[in-house]
């Protein structure tokens, strides 16, 4: 786990230094003298050899310092944490709902194997899954923002919004209005996978003897289905861990379409600005979130399936 994160950090560190173009050029105009350029370079530690830069970077990282953004002139930490929070609010809520709805619908479809509603449902879900998330976002904007004028066109707040407190940012109607469209978009995008996984897991459990026994005992169909779903849920939980790794890819596109001030959008902006520290910081945070989620998922197995014991 630690090794994985370390390799990711190292790879991105050196990848970033391969980008043609000098980050200093972002800070200066053409008529800055050579001496001044040197000074700026020294100030940012860019005059040192790369391995030395790497060692300094790692040393700071272990102490929880992500460096300073060359564009914002702020510590990266201060830039990324609110953005990570914005990302998690959007991603977490809609993913949770997607897994819940997808899981239940998938269990139902798996149970109704062979029915016409099942076949149609599966093809519909496949189609939903094939729609690029950014295009779905654009469509939602087209219909709900520009045509029906129901929701704002992007961002997290109205322009000019100021809040006294951190929590005040999120606890108001304006924020909720801005959340609706990206939330819906992400929900539609993510609902397919949990549904299909739950469905095929149900199909595997369905033929087992204990279900026949329950049926023979005279239990209603819905409670037999519940027992089946209870036993089929593990693959879905495994998937949640994997999903978080993938989720950031969708997040980048979603945040770009809805100009949501989150980690994904920041990474795109920072790549274009050649803001080393911010991109690296975002990478580390994303990898960290993914790894931690996977760990939590591993732990939850024991809760859900008593046969699995940790030693």
């Amino acid at each position: 786990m630690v090794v994985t994160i370390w390799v990711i950090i190292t790879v991105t560190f050196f990848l970033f230094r391969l980008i043609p173009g000098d980050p200093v050029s972002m800070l200066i105009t053409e008529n800055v003298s050579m001496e001044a350029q040197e000074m700026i370079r020294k100030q940012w530690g860019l005059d040192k050899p790369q391995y030395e830069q790497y060692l300094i970077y790692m040393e700071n990282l272990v102490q929880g310092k992500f460096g300073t953004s060359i564009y914002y002139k702020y510590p990266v930490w201060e830039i990324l944490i609110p953005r990570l929070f914005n990302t998690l609010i959007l991603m977490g809520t809609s993913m949770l709902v997607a897994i819940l709805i997808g899981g239940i619908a998938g269990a139902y479809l798996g149970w109704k194997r062979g029915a016409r509603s099942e076949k149609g449902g599966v093809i519909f879900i496949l189609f939903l899954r094939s729609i690029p998330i950014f295009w779905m976002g654009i469509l939602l904007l087209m219909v709900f923002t520009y045509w029906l004028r129901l929701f704002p066109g992007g961002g997290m707040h109205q322009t000019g919004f100021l809040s006294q407190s951190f929590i005040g940012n999120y606890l108001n109607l304006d924020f909720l209005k801005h959340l609706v469209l990206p939330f819906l978009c992400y929900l539609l995008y993510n609902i397919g996978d949990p549904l299909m996984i739950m469905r095929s897991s149900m199909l595997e459990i369905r033929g087992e003897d204990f279900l026949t026994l329950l049926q023979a005992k005279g239990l209603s169909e819905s409670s037999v289905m519940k027992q089946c779903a209870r036993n089929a849920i593990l693959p879905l939980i495994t998937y949640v861990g994997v999903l978080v790794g993938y989720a950031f890819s969708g997040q980048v596109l979603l945040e770009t379409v809805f100009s949501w001030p989150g980690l994904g959008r920041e990474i795109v902006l920072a790549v274009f600005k050649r803001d080393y520290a911010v991109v690296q910081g975002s990478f580390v945070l994303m990898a960290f979130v993914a790894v931690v989620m996977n760990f939590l998922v591993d732990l939850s197995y024991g809760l859900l399936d008593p046969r699995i014991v940790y030693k």
Partner: protein
Amino acid sequence: MVSGYLPYLQIIKNQVQIVLQDFSGKLGACILLFFVLLALFAPVIAPNDPFKVYSREDGSLAKMDPPSSKHWFGTTHYARDVFNQTIWGSRVAILIGFLSAFSVTLIGTVIGLISGYYGGKIDDLLMRLTDIAYGIPFLPLCILLVAILKPSIWNILLAIILLFWRTTARVIRSQVLSLKERPFIWSAKATGAGDLRILFVHIAPNVLPLSLLYLALGVGWGVMTEASLSFLGLGDPMKISWGGMLYDAFQMAAMRTAWWWILPPGISIALFVVSVFLLGRSYEEIVNPRLREP
């Protein structure tokens, strides 16, 4: 179990036949064939250069014209024909989709075979590599790679190949792990077959169906990734692609006014991707017989 000299091509032919018996397999194959034909005959269907700038009859530029008999899908902000661009965009999609899927499947399968068969230190090393490939946020890394290497379809291809082998490798490995303990592999060993022979004559034909499944899905992922990168402005500026069209449209805020600029490329991506997913789904039922209807 398939083993021995049954040629790979024969296996592929059998599998394709089974897929085409299924409804969703047929549907998928038809849509895919449609796009392949579009790409092949693009110069016939849309003879004009997709970058060509059109003018109206009064001589002004045909900017943002709605669909008409002259421009079936309307025109863009740059007075280019949306129909033309949509047709030509299928070329990039097919090229990226198939090339990336073939390379990813090949790499993933070989890594999975070696890792599963040899086990031990080789397996540990390769699986750590796979873990790392899984831990890296995919699209952000592609963005980074393409930004480093300059936007072009070859670099997008490279970025996809560098990371996407991970899924295939894992799946193939677990399949190999169970295969290599089967009696027919033991008997092959007892007759003195070498490692390479066992791998490619006895094991590989049995994981081939699984590889083919991931090949189909890989085409979809490849097209999706190309579209996503192009949408972020990292596409090849010299090539028309569906993602690139949507990038232009989004930058020009076409969702306010020009629905005809938004719909065709998006529907094309979705249809193309769904066609391979449909193929993959009907195929999955072959690979995993438990999913088959009783």
